[in-house]
């Protein structure tokens, strides 16, 4: 099996080299030799692709058959796992995720070879080079290495997965993500082919469906990742501006920029250089993000920086990244004359081109901001070398939210106005309609303001100075910003919906776009609304975000067993009903909480997973996940923070220094000394290890009504570190109890807690009037997630819109394969024209 896997890795490399060579030879002309070379090239690529799939199959088989003698299988899987989680095991480590990326690249490559038509022999060698890079990564860091290369017994059980990865979303999110990354290759290779062979005419039309595919898949992958974080991680959010999240986000923005530029180019025949630039960018930025997250460069600053790749792989990645960037820029520079604008698309500010370009500018700025923020540690680290007074640092989430806000605002406004504008500014923008939209959005904004007032948050007094005297910070200002964004979104939404209605009604898209006749020929009318659907989706998404930012309510109650507690000012009552098992020993333990609304209409039984799970080395890790209650108007998000004990009578706690007295109520306590449990002491001296149960006693003299007795309350620690310390109550004469809560903490030197001679020692002693044992309780953070469904709905609409547009562009290629996307005069050394084919009638 391993031999097969390793052989496949090397076959991939050889086959790809052959394929590149054949294709390059084939690209030199159009004779029969060249055609044959192209066929060989394709065969060799298919062989390589099959070998990559073979590698994936081999890894799968190794995982399923529990081959723990293989290092990768040992580190990422375990017999105790449910079979569903073999999938996350596949891509849990560096080698596996690179293999997944190579897998999708191979599949897409075969599709590309078969559908790129006359451009095949130009794009495929470049594509094969990308596949080769991924193949080399597999050769350097193979998933098929043995755990003990020099012999040794194979372990019977693997280390298993990080519990956070044992989630159905982790089964589908990574493959979708890497499919998206793989699809970024295609616009890149098309643009490269155009630059290398100076063929400006046929690349754009073919690259567009691929870009739309990538846009949709990456969007979907990001949504899945966001939902996983929301469901699993307990902080209630779905986007943290972390490098791993920015990774697909920035190429995604570049894709959108490309798609808009491409539209301008097809209609006006200009901005060729920028279109090429934006076709090259997604792949390069994806490589950059891969380097940042896998190389360990952000190690000290991000939770997500994975284990580092290691020296050689890091270098390969860096060189490929640098190479792709330099070659792209060099080629763009070299051909700058040929790809210059021949017309100025910005000649009419009230034209659709202008709106598109403004959108592209805003998207680019957003991408730059996110890249800069993500790279802040590296940038400041480099800056520190030049200016020693600068310190290396990172930016918090706040940075992204603040800086991206004006961009989001302008984009929303643009989304409203843009679709109403005509190409070349011909015909006035429908000012009348736009005014109506604006009026409606103002009404909507007033409604929003009333909602804010109803739900208890005060309106800002903008003349009032808050928060360090700066009126633009603080919660009140936040509401103002959200109000602006809300108005802009409603405006854009209504504006787009009126257009949608019009497109459906019109039989001919009169004057709205060039190529109207081809529109009519190409497929049913639904295909023309892809762009609009995506725009509407973005507005809906932004509305969801505005709602979350403005109407969230939080509470942190302590829920005592069986006692209903009012939260959110009485809107809901929560009652803790106990555990299903024992969280310290039961790995599937859950906490049960009943949630009832005040008006009695809603009633839920929430289940909060809360259990300690043993890891391979005996250590236990807490497995805590939120409970999410779904309602139409939003979610109720319950995250448990800890367990507690609730005492029926108050406790009085004191840090009692050694030798000191404490008088409270009818008692006087003197703390004499600490005492170790003798059995535990013997165990330690014999074995040198901690026993499973380790009690420490505080020896106290208790004086009550003139009589003095000695009591020894215990503080019991457990070797199993997820079990809480126990402080059993000791009854005192007179009906009170005393507990020894632990040794006092503070800024003192705690390194020698058992040294009886340390003068700063003190014990935490608690007195309580006894009226019954304590009752278990849990502490939770509850928050509302109003209108969060809009976030998921908006994203899905955006993705669907992309797919609809993709279908349309594919049909366009089939219907009119030879139309030149660039109606301007070609550069001098254009390739010979492909023979004309008959256009297929109809769709």
């Amino acid at each position, binding site marked *: 099996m391993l031999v097969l896997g390793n052989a496949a890795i090397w076959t991939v490399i050889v086959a790809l080299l052959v394929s590149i060579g054949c294709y390059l030879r084939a690209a030199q002309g159009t004779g029969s030799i060249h055609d044959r070379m192209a066929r060989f090239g394709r065969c060799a690529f298919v062989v390589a692709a099959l070998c990559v799939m073979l590698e994936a199959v081999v890894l799968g088989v190794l995982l399923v058959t529990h081959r723990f003698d293989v290092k990768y299988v040992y*580190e990422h899987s375990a017999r105790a796992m449910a079979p569903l989680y073999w999938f996350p095991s596949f891509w849990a480590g560096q080698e596996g995720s690179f293999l997944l990326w190579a897998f999708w690249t191979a599949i897409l490559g075969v599709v590309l070879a078969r559908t790129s038509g006359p451009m095949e022999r130009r794009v495929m060698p470049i594509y094969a080079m990308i596949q080769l890079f991924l193949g080399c990564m597999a050769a350097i860091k193979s998933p098929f290495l043995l755990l003990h290369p020099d012999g040794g017994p194979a372990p019977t059980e693997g*280390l298993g997965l*990080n519990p956070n990865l044992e989630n159905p979303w982790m089964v589908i999110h990574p493959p979708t993500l890497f499919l998206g990354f793989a699809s970024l290759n295609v616009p890149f290779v098309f643009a490269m082919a155009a630059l290398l062979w100076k063929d400006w005419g046929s690349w754009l039309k073919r690259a567009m469906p691929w870009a739309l595919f990538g846009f949709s898949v990456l969007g979907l992958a990001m949504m899945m990742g966001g939902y996983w974080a929301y469901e699993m991680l307990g*902080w209630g959010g779905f986007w943290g501006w972390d490098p791993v999240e920015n990774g697909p986000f920035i190429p995604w923005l570049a894709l959108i920029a490309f798609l808009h530029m491409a539209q301008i180019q097809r209609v006006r025949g200009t901005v060729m250089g920028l279109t090429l630039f934006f076709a090259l960018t997604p792949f390069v930025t994806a490589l950059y993000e891969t380097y940042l997250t896998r190389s360990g460069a952000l190690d*000290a*600053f991000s*939770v*997500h*920086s994975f*284990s*580092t790749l290691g020296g050689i792989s890091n270098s390969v990645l860096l060189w490929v990244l640098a190479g792709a960037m330099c070659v792209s820029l060099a080629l763009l520079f070299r051909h700058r004359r040929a790809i210059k604008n021949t017309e*100025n698309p*910005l*000649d*009419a*500010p009230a034209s659709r081109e*202008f709106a598109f*370009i*403004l959108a592209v*500018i*805003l998207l680019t*700025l957003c991408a*730059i*901001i996110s890249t800069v923020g993500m790279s*802040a540690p590296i940038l*400041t680290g480099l800056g520190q070398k030049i200016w020693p007074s600068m*310190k*290396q*640092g*990172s*930016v*918090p989430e*706040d*940075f992204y939210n*603040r*800086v991206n806000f*004006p*961009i989001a605002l302008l984009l929303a406004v643009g989304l409203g106005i843009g679709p109403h504008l005509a190409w070349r500014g011909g015909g006035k923008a429908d000012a009348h309609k736009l005014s109506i939209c604006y009026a409606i959005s103002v009404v909507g904004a007033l409604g929003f303001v009333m909602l804010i007032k109803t739900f208890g948050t005060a309106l800002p007094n903008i003349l009032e100075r808050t928060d360090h005297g700066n009126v633009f910070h603080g919660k009140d200002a936040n509401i103002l910003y959200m109000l602006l964004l809300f108005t802009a979104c409603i405006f854009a939404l209504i504006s787009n919906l009126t257009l949608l209605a019009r497109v459906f009604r019109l039989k001919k898209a009169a004057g709205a776009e060039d190529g109207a006749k081809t529109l009519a020929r190409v497929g049913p009318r639904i295909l023309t609304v892809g762009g609009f659907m995506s725009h509407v989706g973005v507005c809906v998404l932004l509305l969801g975000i505005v709602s979350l930012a403005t109407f969230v309510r939080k509470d942190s109650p302590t829920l005592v067993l069986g006692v209903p507690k009012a939260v959110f000012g009485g809107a809901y009552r929560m009652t803790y009903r106990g555990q299903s098992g024992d969280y310290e020993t039961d790995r599937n333990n859950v906490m049960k909480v009943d949630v009832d609304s005040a008006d009695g209409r809603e009633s839920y039984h929430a289940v909060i997973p809360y259990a*300690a799970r043993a*890891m*391979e*080395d005996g*250590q236990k890790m*807490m497995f*805590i996940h939120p409970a999410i209650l779904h309602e139409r108007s939003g979610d109720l998000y319950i995250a448990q*923070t*800890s367990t507690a004990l609730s005492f029926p009578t108050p406790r009085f*706690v004191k840090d009692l220094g050694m030798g000191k007295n404490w008088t409270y109520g009818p008692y006087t306590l003197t703390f004499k000394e600490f005492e170790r449990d003798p059995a535990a002491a013997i165990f330690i001296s014999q074995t040198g290890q901690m026993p499973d149960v380790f009690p420490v006693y505080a020896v106290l003299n208790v004086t009550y009504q003139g009589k003095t007795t000695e009591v020894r309350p215990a503080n019991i*620690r457990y070797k199993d*570190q*997820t079990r809480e310390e126990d402080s059993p109550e000791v009854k005192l004469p007179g009906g009170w109890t005393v507990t020894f*809560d*632990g*040794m006092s*903490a*503070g*800024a003192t030197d*705690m*390194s020698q*807690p058992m040294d009886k001679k340390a003068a700063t020692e003190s014990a935490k002693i608690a007195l309580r009037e006894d009226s019954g044992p304590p009752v278990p309780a849990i502490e939770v953070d509850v928050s509302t997630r109003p209108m969060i469904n809009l976030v998921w709905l908006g994203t899905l609409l955006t993705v669907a819109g992309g797919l609809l547009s993709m279908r349309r562009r594919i049909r366009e290629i089939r219907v009119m394969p030879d139309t030149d996307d660039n109606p301007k005069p070609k550069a001098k050394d254009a390739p010979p024209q492909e023979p004309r084919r008959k256009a297929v009638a109809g769709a």
Partner: protein
Amino acid sequence: MIPRKAIGPLIGLTVIVATMAFTISTMKSTLISKLTFAEARKATDTTVQIIGTPVSGTMAYDGTAHALHFAMQDETGATMPVTFKGPKPEDMDSAMAKATKITAQGVFDPKQSTFVAENLLVKCPSKYQGQTGATERSYKS
């Protein structure tokens, strides 16, 4: 006054310049710098970041104040007491006490003479023998 042809590029340029200026100024004000312990003691008005390993035996949780206390040390051996307000981490004595690296983001409070952390990034020793990898956890107060 402004030629019609130039309006477009002008608007575009304004947007770009304004955004970049805003970005740089926001970055300056929100940047969390990584400082040494000595520098952190002096920077008492901005959020900063310090990195170190926990000193064994100093990890303790104060139930009444809902705060975690421990001491950190850096490569030079200097120590810094840290306070983190929040619920008691369940793996306080195991994973946190044995952490190979803790990154604390917060601000130094000279009155309490302790670093008040808002955010902890804990890198725990990997369960894989001899591996360089590690599991990481983030605690936000």
